[in-house]
């Protein structure tokens, strides 16, 4: 577990931007997002790198409106650059063609990858899907059943939460972060709170760290149960889907009892804790979690021995380790591909102790591995929750970190879908720029990649094995 340090900001000129980023990558920095912001001196490009000891931010002022692209260094930067281009007008030299991300031109040529040839045509799904699914558009280029390429068009649900938060008091930002996504509400608010606290030079005390960890794991619990249910539904195995949907319901009812909200809304505050759970409640919760754990373990065996289910999972939607790293995939999907990374093991602001990232039995990167990783992670989550709930929860607070406020804070939190990175530029006690890159946002390109060369009827299953949110990617 690294020591608690505020993010290190390195300011460079636009000419040195690319070289500086390259240097960070060579020094072992993991690219975790890029965003544009508008400061007093005009446009600014910011690139985030996570290193084992400290977060680094490379900032460059862009006077000419254009800056060197990073997309050939980090493929994961592609989406970030497109967003920066669309929302801030920042141009990236060398990023050709720059396909729009926020803007939705009608002509498919403008935003899809052209596929030359006689037979291919496009199948469009969404933004309105059949069933209860969020809004997003998939444009498959296919020949019959085989997917040649998948273009995603997102941001249908773009509510402009980031820009709306600008200029408001820092504490207000929590509402925007929470509203980005209900299923990741805790992750997003904790990441935001951490970013603000980091920018202000504050650190949470033990009580606050415990409370936030508890909330995060409760969130992971119901999300993972939901994901398993979704995968079962994806292969048409209704008993599994229903059983795990019932587990999810129980987990959400537990949330309601412990915190007063099924989605744990309004449980995270800035530089303060609000969670208060007495001894009796923790004991009851432990009991409930224990029975839940026993029952779900039993059902996992059933799933593993259901041949018709297992038959659907192997070798579908494969994401190789190289592709996962290249595309910047994070979270369970990356770990299922053999990427040994979990932000919980580098979270000094939380209460994870010596956490070791989960590994699936076979890191094959297919749907089977993504299902299996959830089994392993559910076991971890149950264990962590059990440990945390042995003592009661009192409201916590913050203490000063011996670092001066530097106006830019970064918070990194592992959501059920992967690492969520929040960067906040403070402007006194108001938000100057809020950048929220959620685990879903980082993983969508991996979904598109994993879908290639698979069959169309398997796509819903592949999509569900990632089970990403659209809301937190669109914000």
């Amino acid at each position, binding site marked *: 577990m690294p020591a608690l340090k505020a993010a290190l900001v390195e300011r460079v000129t636009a000419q040195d931007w690319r070289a500086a980023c390259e240097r960070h990558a060579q020094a072992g920095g993991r690219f975790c997002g890029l965003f544009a912001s508008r400061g007093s001196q005009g446009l600014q490009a910011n690139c985030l790198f996570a290193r084992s000891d400290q977060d680094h931010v490379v900032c460059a002022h862009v006077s000419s409106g254009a800056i060197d692209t990073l997309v050939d260094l980090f493929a994961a930067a592609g989406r970030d650059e497109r967003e920066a281009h669309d929302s801030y007008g920042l141009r990236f030299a060398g990023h050709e063609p720059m396909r729009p991300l926020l803007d939705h031109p*009608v002509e498919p040529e403008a935003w899809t*990858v*052209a596929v*030359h*040839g*006689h037979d291919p*045509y496009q199948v*469009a799904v969404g933004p309105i899907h059949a069933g209860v699914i969020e809004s997003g*558009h998939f444009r498959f280029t*296919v020949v019959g059943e085989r997917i040649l390429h998948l273009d995603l068009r997102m941001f249908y649900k773009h509510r402009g939460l980031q820009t709306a938060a600008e200029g408001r008091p820092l504490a207000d930002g929590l509402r925007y972060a929470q509203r980005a996504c209900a299923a990741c509400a805790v992750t997003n608010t904790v990441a935001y709170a951490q970013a603000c606290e980091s920018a202000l030079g504050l650190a949470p005390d033990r009580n606050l760290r415990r409370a936030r960890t508890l909330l995060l794991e409760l969130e992971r619990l119901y999300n993972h149960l939901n994901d398993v249910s979704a995968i079962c539904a994806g292969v048409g195995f209704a008993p599994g889907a229903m059983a795990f949907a019932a587990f999810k319901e129980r987990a959400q009812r537990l949330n309601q009892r412990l915190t007063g909200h099924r989605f744990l809304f309004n449980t995270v505050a800035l530089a303060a804790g609000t969670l208060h759970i007495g001894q009796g409640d923790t004991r009851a919760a432990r009991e409930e979690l224990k029975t839940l754990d026993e029952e779900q373990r039993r059902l996992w065996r059933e799933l593993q021995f259901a041949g018709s289910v297992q038959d659907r999972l192997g070798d579908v939607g494969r994401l190789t380790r190289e592709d996962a790293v290249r595309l910047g995939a994070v979270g369970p999907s990356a770990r299922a591909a053999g990427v040994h990374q979990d932000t919980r093991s580098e979270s000094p602001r939380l209460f994870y102790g010596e956490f070791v990232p989960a590994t699936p039995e076979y890191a094959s990167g297919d749907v089977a591995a993504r299902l299996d990783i959830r089994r392993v992670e559910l076991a971890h989550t149950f264990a962590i929750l059990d440990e945390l709930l042995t003592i009661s929860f009192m409201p916590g607070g913050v203490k000063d970190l011996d670092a001066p406020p530097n106006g830019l804070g970064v918070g990194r939190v592992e959501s059920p879908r992967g690492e969520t990175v929040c960067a906040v530029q403070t402007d006194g006690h108001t938000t100057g720029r809020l950048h929220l890159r959620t685990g879903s946002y980082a993983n969508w390109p991996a979904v598109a990649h994993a879908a290639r060369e698979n069959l169309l009827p398997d796509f819903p299953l592949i999509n569900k094995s990632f089970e990403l949110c659209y809301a937190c990617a669109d914000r």
Partner: protein
Amino acid sequence: MPLHSWLPRAHPLAPAHISALMSGVMIKLALYGLVRVLFDWLAPPGLWVGITLMAVGALSCLGGVLYALMQHELKRLLAFHSIENVGIVALGLGASLVFADIGQPRWSAIAFAAALLHALNHALFKGLLFLGAGAFAKAVGGLELDRLGGLLRRMPWTGATFALGAMAIAGLPPLNGFASEWLTLQSLLHLGLASQMGVAFAGALATAALAGTAALAVYCFVKVIGLVLLGLPRRAECAQAREVPVGMRASMVFLAASCVALGVLPGLLVPTLAALGPGRVTLHEAAGLNIPGTGSLPTLVLALALVALVGALVRLARSRRAAPAPTWTCGQPPAAGLQWTSAGFTKPLRLVLEALLRPRRELRVIASSGVVEALAYQAEVPHLFDTLLYGPVSRGALRGARIARRVQSGSLRTYLIYLLALLGVLLALARTGVLG
């Protein structure tokens, strides 16, 4: 079947009415020769001839329709269907020979009548389809399936008769294709009930093959009607297509009417045809087909009942309709790029039969600087007989010695072996049939 290679190539080159003649008459001439040789000169030719004829027939009807399904050009597609239909006729003739040999003259006559009826039907609906294709070619220029569309609205007469012909060739009730395929299927099925094991197996396999062929033909003509007549026009010429002159329309309407008439009243013709057969058996004359050992096919009642019911149900359903709205595309504005292609519609089958059809495909990524610029896709379904038989032979003639190495390396060999094995099995079956 193996000797058909010229046909699909010749058809697209010939003008439409010649094509119609080609399939209507020329192919029939060959069949006439075959009938003459087998039934008159060589009679009785022996069991193995019948079985071999059935094997060849089954192979060509399945192969013909399978390759027809993979075609992108209308006339080429129709030409492959000629191969299919000749295969069906051959199945009937083969069955007739076998029945004659195992001492069932009645079924022999029925199978013979089935074959002749199908040959006649084929001349009618294939002629109709080729004339329709000619009309489309005249109206819009090319017959590339993926570049047509929406022609039913622009050319209602041609479109409707073409659709009718397609239904007939697909063997759907109550049209003539169904009547003759029903007869053929019944004969094969009863061959499957024969008391000699070899014959029964041949009959059962041929039945399954013909049933599969019929389903494939439905598949194929759903595709053809859909691509040519329905949906949105895929290019400007289709949107401005004009109906062809009355003379052309009249001949199509006449052929379509014949298809309906023969579908509704096949019973008037079948006894005559049966009497021509080897057994000189007389059958009971009626509108429908009433053959002992079957549940009978009362074509007239069936057709009338269908028309009446459809009419009544359409009337009943004619409720108030909501305002016109585009086809639901998940909330997207409808776009022409989303229309399906021929290859796309048949892809499920192509994937299932990948091992058999050996499609070639290739996907290239064009990318620089980390952003994917475009992809290039190329695929084709090679014609196995061309690539495996004629290709090597013609190449062999040119390059002599190198062919030996070619055949020995790669997958060509396995497929030749498969074909040989299949032939061997069929021969063995025929032999056991002879012995049994």
